[in-house]
């Protein structure tokens, strides 16, 4: 059954091909159903292969080789799929969640003029992501890596008629490129050091690598991961990516693409283990700091999607914290649970936005739980999971990560644990804030005067922010689809409604998954399912936790208390108080610590001088060298041309000179008769 692995990426690819050719003919909604069917079939194939892996006795990992892609002497790369517990796990949740989101999109995008194009891109994306996770070598992963990057760009700027959306797509692509450079150079180094780019060969050769080589490779791959998974400092593209349609945010920027970095680092874990000890520390510190940093920004966002975007950055930080601490299982576990609850949160947000006629500003929402009960319920489940409240899935996975950080020991380990707990507190806070502002409290959308009064008091100083958001690259509040539901302006006629079944069904499924997902890896002896399942792959690089059971209970309790404190604080500030009395968001946090402004200032000011300098160098030195060769040749030619005087006697002189040389040779060699 494992031989069917090629079907997993082939089905979405076929969907893509068919839609490219026949999409316009199939139209709305048939194209969407076809795309969804393909991904669902891919999910079914994943299950079949998974069963095959489970049933395999002995070697759990196998490779299916399709054909040789690059046969270049000593460098050979095949298009081959690696079937092992890790890759099939990734394939399962990628296809599963993708199928649900495809279904959701049928409802969400039904009013869009470019319905078919959306599904074309979505299928292509799923194909690329599957190639990424199933590929058996770095190059194939990189192919998928670039593919998802391209689809991300295409989908972020899906509504490219608005310039801000197109800019956001560009920003994502360019920022990712910096990381991609790291990936490419790492691949080169790997080939030089090991002679192959296949994961099997890398895993086998890793223990024998020189520390410096492994360090370089690990750091460069981490750079790639930083770009793709939006860590400090390359996270700036993810908030802007919210300019794309919400299903895109859910699928790409929450559940799948951004996890590619985590997957990559897990795959090359043996190399990490062989690198200098400061490399995992670096990864953990970057992860931890990112988590905290993004959480501080999330607490001050007013756009519901931005909150979720920064939340994603923060949760990805947790995953890298886990990897840096050697807790690979915890990282993968959190990746899976995060996919569940973040997807349900994004889809829920999309449902809210759809129901609110493209309104995304939470300050204009409120009291939606009566109007959109299913959305509210599933959103609540996802929120509790994100906040880390037991028994929801997020609690179990986050707890594993915090345990891993604590287990690391030393100043760094304990410090990172503290950062993790602080972040958990802030996470709960902004989650609570988001839920209370959106679904509870007074309805700020129906009654124009009350809304206006509250708005005016709270945002009098922030009006200019709205005008400036376009220029600094952050998507402005209403850059959603040019919908037919009417602008947010006519508040009087606004009547939020629950979404159609195509949108609520995925919400329910994912909500259940977010609630019960913790069962995948309970910290009870026999129930550590995920850990034992992944053991053949990550067992060698996993650092086992050595804390006593009592310590584990205490640590868990502290984390839960922190989460409850955060939720409580949010409740006091946002549930109890009237809208007008709620605290205004601090400007510095709302603007993300002014990072985007700083980058713009640098690029416009000293950065521009630097770039001009580089451009000058390219023009003068590099081009100059090339042109210089041409000038040299021409100059030499002009000079030598003067030898052609046209006078026969001058040519005769030339003859004489040649004769002299010959005679000289004769004299020097000596002649004997």
């Amino acid at each position, binding site marked *: 059954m494992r031989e069917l692995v090629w079907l997993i990426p082939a089905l979405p690819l076929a969907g893509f091909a068919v839609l490219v050719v026949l999409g316009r003919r199939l139209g709305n909604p048939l194209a969407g159903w076809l795309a969804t069917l393909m991904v669902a079939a891919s999910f079914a194939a994943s299950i079949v292969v998974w069963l095959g892996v489970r049933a395999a006795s002995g070697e759990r990992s196998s490779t299916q080789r399709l054909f040789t892609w690059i046969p270049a002497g000593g460098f050979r790369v095949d298009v081959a799929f690696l079937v092992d517990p890790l890759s099939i796990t990734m394939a399962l949740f990628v296809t599963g969640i993708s199928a649900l989101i495809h279904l959701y999109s049928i409802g969400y995008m039904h009013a869009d003029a470019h319905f078919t194009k959306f599904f074309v891109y979505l299928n292509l994306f799923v194909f690329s992501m599957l190639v990424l996770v199933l590929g058996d070598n770095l190059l194939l992963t990189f192919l998928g890596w670039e593919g998802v990057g391209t689809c991300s760009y295409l989908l972020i700027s899906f509504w490219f008629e608005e310039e801000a959306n197109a800019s956001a797509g560009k920003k994502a692509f360019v920022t990712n490129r910096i990381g991609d450079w790291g990936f490419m150079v790492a691949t080169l180094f790997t080939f030089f050091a090991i002679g192959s780019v296949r994961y099997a060969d890398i895993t086998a050769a890793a223990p024998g690598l020189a520390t410096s080589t492994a360090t370089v490779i690990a750091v460069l791959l981490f750079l790639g991961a930083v770009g793709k998974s939006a860590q400090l400092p390359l996270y700036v593209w993810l908030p802007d990516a919210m300019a794309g349609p919400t299903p895109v945010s859910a699928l790409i920027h929450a559940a799948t693409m951004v996890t590619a970095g985590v997957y990559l680092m897990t795959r090359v874990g043996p190399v990490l283990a062989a690198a200098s000890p400061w490399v995992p520390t670096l990864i953990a510190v970057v992860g931890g700091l990112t988590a905290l940093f993004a959480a501080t920004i999330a607490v001050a966002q007013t756009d519901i999607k931005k909150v979720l975007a920064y939340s994603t950055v923060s949760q990805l930080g947790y995953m890298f914290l886990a990897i840096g601490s050697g807790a690979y299982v915890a990282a993968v576990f959190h990746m899976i649970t995060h996919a569940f609850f973040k997807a349900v949160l994004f889809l829920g947000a999309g449902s809210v936005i759809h129901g609110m006629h493209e309104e995304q500003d939470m300050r204009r929402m409120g009291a939606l739980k009566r109007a959109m009960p299913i959305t509210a319920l599933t959103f609540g489940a996802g929120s509790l999971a994100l906040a880390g409240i037991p028994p929801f899935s997020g609690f179990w996975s986050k707890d594993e990560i915090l345990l891993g950080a604590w287990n690391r020991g030393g100043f760094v380990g304990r410090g990172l644990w503290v950062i993790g707990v602080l972040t958990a507190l802030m996470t709960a806070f902004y989650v609570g804030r988001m839920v209370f502002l959106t679904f509870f409290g007074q309805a700020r959308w129906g009654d124009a005067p009350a809304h206006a009064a509250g708005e005016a008091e709270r945002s009098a100083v922030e009006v200019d922010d709205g005008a400036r958001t376009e220029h600094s690259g952050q998507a402005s509040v209403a850059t959603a689809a040019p919908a037919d539901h009417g602008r947010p302006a006519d508040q009087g006629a606004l009547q939020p409604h629950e979404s159609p079944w195509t949108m609520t069904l995925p919400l329910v499924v994912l909500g259940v998954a977010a609630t019960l997902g913790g069962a995948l890896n309970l910290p009870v002896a026999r129930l550590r399912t995920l850990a034992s399942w992944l053991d053949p792959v990550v067992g060698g690089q996993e650092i086992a936790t050595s804390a006593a059971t009592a310590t584990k209970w205490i640590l868990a309790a502290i984390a839960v208390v922190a989460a409850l404190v955060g939720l409580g604080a949010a409740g006091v500030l946002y549930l109890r108080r009237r809208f007008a009395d709620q605290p205004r968001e601090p400007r510095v946090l709302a603007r993300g610590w002014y990072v985007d402004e700083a980058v713009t200032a640098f690029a416009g000011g000293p950065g521009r001088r630097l770039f001009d300098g580089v451009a000058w160098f390219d023009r003068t030195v590099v081009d100059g060298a090339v042109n210089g060769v041409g000038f040299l040749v021409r100059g030499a030619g002009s000079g030598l*041309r003067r*030898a*052609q*005087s*046209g*006078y*026969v*006697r001058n040519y*005769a*002189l030339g003859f*004489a000179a040649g*004769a002299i040389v010959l005679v000289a040779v004769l004299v020097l060699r000596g002649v004997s*008769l």
Partner: protein
Amino acid sequence: MITAAVVDPSWYLGLGAVLFTMGAVGLLVRRNPLVMFMCVELMLNAVNLTFVALARQLRDVGGQVVVFFVLVVAAAEVVVGLGIIVSIIRRRPGATADDVSLLKG
């Protein structure tokens, strides 16, 4: 008095070298095409002298055969060359070697 019985062959070779040099200098210095041609003949004769001297030195008749051929070819060459000179000077009376400079690059 010069009474040596046999002349060292090197003297002949030396004489040939001198004649050749004089012919070369004349070719490079004179502009009248006919005189230049005569200098070429001078050089050929110097070569002939050298060949004969060496034929005698090495007791090889082949050297004299070569001279024979050189003579034949020189004759043919003179015929054709003078034909060319005639054509040129007919076209442009008073032309010298420097006037034929169309190959200027």
